[in-house]
């Protein structure tokens, strides 16, 4: 659909621009300001140029946290996207079941993030948690997310999949509901199998919503903070210290605003770069198979 060229449309966008810019631009400028200075206290700072960027880029622990973060976000996307689509395909299309499914599935999304961490502490503790105690005494598998790195990872992944798969499922369900019945009828007449119906009709039609789901999941999992902070505190050792947990360690606990600012900007650029690549790639796939 061709859009009407009209620059007065800016008037309609202006309120959004003002309200977002108010909260976006000044804090961003301030962080850039931090990143090039060594700050000792109020009104005591010296300009250090790109010193902090060099230091941060060479920081071994930052590299470790970054790889951990890539592994985590990669796993999140690989598990949650197919699982969410599968759930959306299985959900009822009409009747009372629709409301029931939507309400239940949205529950984890509406729980504050630190409460999510709390739920999983209570659920997985080896002494009082159903999952932790079940693993230890019923199945005889030693499980303790506070002591063993692998167990900590399993717990964080379980929590993450539990928490966010519903978002993918809800968006995928929305995409599925928007496909006109005529497409399915055509597929039936052609004698298409369920698999080819999925591959050639449902998946291309869901591209728009899946783009949103994919980008939201990438950004939010890459920036994850509160849930692992409450659940594991980044431990045991540094095994679940994701990028933002390490950032908080540097910036707030050691109160080093300069390196913290530089770290934040590097972090921001990484998220921006990957989001941009994903966005462009997903848009291009869309142009290839315009139905």
């Amino acid at each position, binding site marked *: 659909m061709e859009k009407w060229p*009209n620059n007065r449309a800016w008037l309609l*966008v202006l309120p959004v621009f003002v*309200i977002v810019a108010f909260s976006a631009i000044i804090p*961003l400028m301030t962080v850039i300001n931090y990143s090039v200075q060594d700050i000792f206290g109020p009104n005591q700072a010296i300009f250090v140029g790109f010193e902090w960027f060099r230091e941060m880029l060479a920081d071994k622990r930052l590299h470790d946290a970054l790889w951990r973060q890539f592994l985590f976000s990669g796993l999140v996307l690989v598990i949650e996207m197919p699982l969410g689509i599968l759930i959306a395909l299985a959900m009822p299309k009409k009747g009372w079941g629709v409301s029931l499914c939507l*309400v239940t599935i949205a529950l984890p999304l509406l729980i504050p993030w630190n*409460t999510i961490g709390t739920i999983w502490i209570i659920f997985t503790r080896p002494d*009082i948690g159903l999952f932790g105690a079940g693993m230890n005494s019923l199945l005889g598998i030693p499980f303790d997310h506070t002591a063993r790195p692998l167990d900590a990872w399993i717990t964080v992944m379980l929590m993450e999949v539990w928490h966010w798969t519903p978002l993918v499922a809800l968006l995928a369900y929305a995409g599925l509901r928007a496909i006109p019945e005529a497409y399915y009828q055509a597929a039936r007449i052609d004698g298409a199998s369920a698999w080819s119906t999925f591959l050639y009709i449902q998946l291309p039609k869901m591209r728009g919503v899946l783009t949103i789901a994919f980008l939201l999941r990438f950004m939010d999992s890459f920036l994850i903070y509160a849930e692992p902070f409450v659940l594991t505190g980044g431990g045991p050792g540094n095994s679940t210290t994701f*990028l933002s947990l390490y950032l908080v360690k540097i910036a707030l606990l050691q109160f080093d605003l300069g390196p913290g600012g530089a*770290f934040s900007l590097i972090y921001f650029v990484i998220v921006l770069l990957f989001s941009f690549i994903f966005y462009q790639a997903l848009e291009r796939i869309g142009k290839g198979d315009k139905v």
Partner: protein
Amino acid sequence: MKGRKKFVGLAIYFILLLVPIYWMLNMSLRSNADILASFALYPKDITLMNYMNIFTDSSWYMGYVNSMIYVALNTAISLFVALPAAYAFSRYQFVGDKQLFFWLLTNRMAPAAVFALPFFQLYSTVGLLDTHIAVALAHCLFNVPLAVWILEGFMSGIPREIDETAFIDGYSFPRFFITIFIPLIRAGVGVTAFFCFMFSWVELLLARTLTVTEAKPISAIMTRTISATGLDYGLLAAAGILTIVPGAMVIWFVRNHMAKGFALGRV
């Protein structure tokens, strides 16, 4: 997938989804001493003591009130500014439209930890610190872009002949927008409101940074359960259960919109 297998798979998923929440409910109905003393699949002596503690202590229950005030404000502001903007993005071509759209999205990509301090400085400079409106405005940073994105999808699904016909019939833009266009995407507005509510309700870091006492959100107050004697699991679980309630109520109200809205738009 065949019908039966589908149903069983879905049922298993929903059970797994509910078990952790059930476990917290179980904990919330037991005293802390009882929780630490024995493992129980269901509460044997149900006590409402944890909930009574919360409902009789104003520093606890005001947390819920504060959270609800700023979340409602944020949802209202986000929708109010995002509706005309989404219309512009879905109907018009203008200088910088694509760049502006992507810039809006980039505001969801900054790590909040270090940005929290400049936020604190900014809002104390303009004298809004420790007010509900400060948190509501700060949450616009990530909710407004999302609202524009979702609404734009719904609006693009409405044929433009409707706009053209209305303008030929002599409708002014505001009158057309409010009396004809918004009712057409009612469902989309419902879905957007749901997402704005959700992301504002669950956010912790900015809300905690921008408030001191007057507008302190419940999620920040929950950290009080950590005392010298360790965690009070019963109280923590009860507070957690209560944070789920408003969200569950919102879903209940918009459930029909969600089903329908999700069916209409490409979101």
